[in-house]
């Protein structure tokens, strides 16, 4: 699983890089527009270690933000599954608010909360929160009648049991959504750092852009891709182990 994902990323990266170099040499562009191999290798030797730690910094914020949003989506999803006014309200609110572009709200978050870790965390969490929430509400609101019926008619049903049944029956869907939203958490954190933070790889990319240094951006993209692939593989593995633990018969 891991080597396949990394191989896929490397293939895409190398293809992209080759295309850029091809354009550079065909159009005879300077290193200022597209860096050459020499410039790239020099940049790698200069910034690789620093950028690696920047990516780790971003990744840690993304992971925490992702965990927060999964917890939040679970709580709201549990409320949203109710047939009461609270459930309906949460559902309607979630469907409406999710259409709001979080990046547009990000500047307000930075003004209110400053440019420290809390803003990055909040934006990362919020960016991956809505897709998660919609899936969680959908899954937790959808009865699994063939299983729930027995508990309903025998009066054994509790909200915990209901949630457990629905989560268990939709484990594959949930795992896919969680892995998918993990990418969004990473993207959200980078965007947040790009807009206003003072650390992380998004911040480094912003500085590189100020300096019109595409080679730094390419190194950053490489590290982001590799680290994100590793993280997604980890998540998939965890999901697989959880499912396997319950399903082994």
């Amino acid at each position, binding site marked *: 699983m891991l080597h396949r994902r990394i191989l896929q990323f490397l293939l895409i990266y190398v293809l992209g890089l080759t295309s850029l170099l091809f354009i550079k040499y065909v159009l005879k*562009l*300077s290193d200022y527009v597209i860096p050459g191999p020499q410039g790239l290798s020099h940049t790698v030797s200069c910034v690789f270690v620093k950028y690696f730690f920047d990516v780790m910094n971003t990744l840690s914020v993304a992971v925490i933000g992702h965990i927060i949003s999964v917890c939040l989506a679970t709580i709201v999803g549990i409320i949203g599954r109710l047939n009461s006014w609270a459930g309906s309200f949460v559902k309607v609110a979630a469907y409406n608010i999710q259409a709001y572009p979080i990046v547009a709200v990000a500047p307000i978050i930075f003004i209110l909360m400053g440019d420290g870790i809390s803003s990055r965390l909040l934006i990362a969490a919020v960016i991956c929160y809505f897709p998660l929430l919609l899936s969680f509400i959908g899954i937790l609101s959808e009865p699994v009648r063939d299983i729930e019926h027995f508990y309903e008619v025998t009066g054994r049903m509790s909200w915990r049991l209901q949630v457990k049944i629905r989560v268990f029956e939709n484990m594959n869907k949930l795992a896919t959504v969680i892995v998918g939203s993990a990418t969004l958490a990473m993207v959200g954190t980078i965007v947040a750092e790009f807009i206003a933070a003072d650390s992380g790889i998004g911040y480094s990319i912003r500085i590189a852009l100020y300096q019109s240094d595409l080679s730094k951006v390419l190194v950053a993209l490489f590290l982001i891709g590799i680290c994100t692939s590793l993280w997604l593989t980890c998540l998939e593995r965890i999901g697989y182990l959880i499912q396997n633990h319950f399903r082994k018969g």
Partner: protein
Amino acid sequence: MCKHIQKLCFIAAVTATVIVTGACDKKTGDSGKEVTYRLKWLFNASVAGDIYADVNGFFAEQGLDVTIKPGGPERDAIKELELGRSQFGTASADQVIRAVSKGASVVVIAQLFQTNSLQWIYRPDKTRVDTPEDLRGKTIGITYGGNDEAIMRAVLAKYNIMENEVQLFSVHYDYTPFYEGKVDIWPVYRNTQGIFISEKLSEAAERTAFFDPDMAGVRFVANSVITTEQMIKEDPQTVRKFVTALLRGWQKSLDPKNEEKAVAAIHQFDKDTSIETVRKQLSVTKRFIKPSPETEIGKIDADAWKQTENIMLEQNLIPGPVNVEKILKPFYNL
């Protein structure tokens, strides 16, 4: 077979329509030579002369059909020149020197800002920065990676102020830390943002002042007009005509007799800024474009360029000297 021919005819008709529609989409009517001019930033008072020349048909008089495109954080006129999307552009000196150090064949044909409008705003009632030495112990806002970082580091180095004697604060687009007093001095473009912030603080009965690195002897060149080496070689006539029209636009826009016309022209492109603010911005911009009545608009200050190159070399922003004087091709020599 018949169906196949019909299909081919249909595809040909659609292709022809697309081509014709695309062609019609282009500006028609102007028979002048088409030229694109990419600005460094959005339309505002900093490009008063560019707008004035366009609105008043100075380019057309020279037989040019110029499309002025606004810049922005992700726009880079130098890259556009190399890719052939623009023929002229505006760029700051650090951009030009960086590009030259990486092999770009860019040349400077006019220097619009004789002094850099990048200054640091502060509240004189709370913070005194009468001399560069007063920076010691202050919290100074800088944009990491931006040219204000290079300028401030040059000032600090020139006056032997160690980095641990000041506190550098990473600034972003919002000024809240400055308004809240967390940062003592904050980088602004004196002729645009400087006006806005001063107005705001003035509403709160607070006075503002500016620290000017130029006054401290650090000359870091700002916006200049650029084109490519190839353009100068292959079409010097167009370059000459373009610069002539552009500088005429600047001369006229800064002439007090034309103030209202210039303000109206800027406001036409920058509707979000009030007329009154535009007027103030234009007045301050004049100080940077034509600091004294004798100053020739667009004159290239070679010494300032060399100093800019030296600052960048000292701060390792470029790997080696670029001999910047080689790329300065003043319009009057063309």
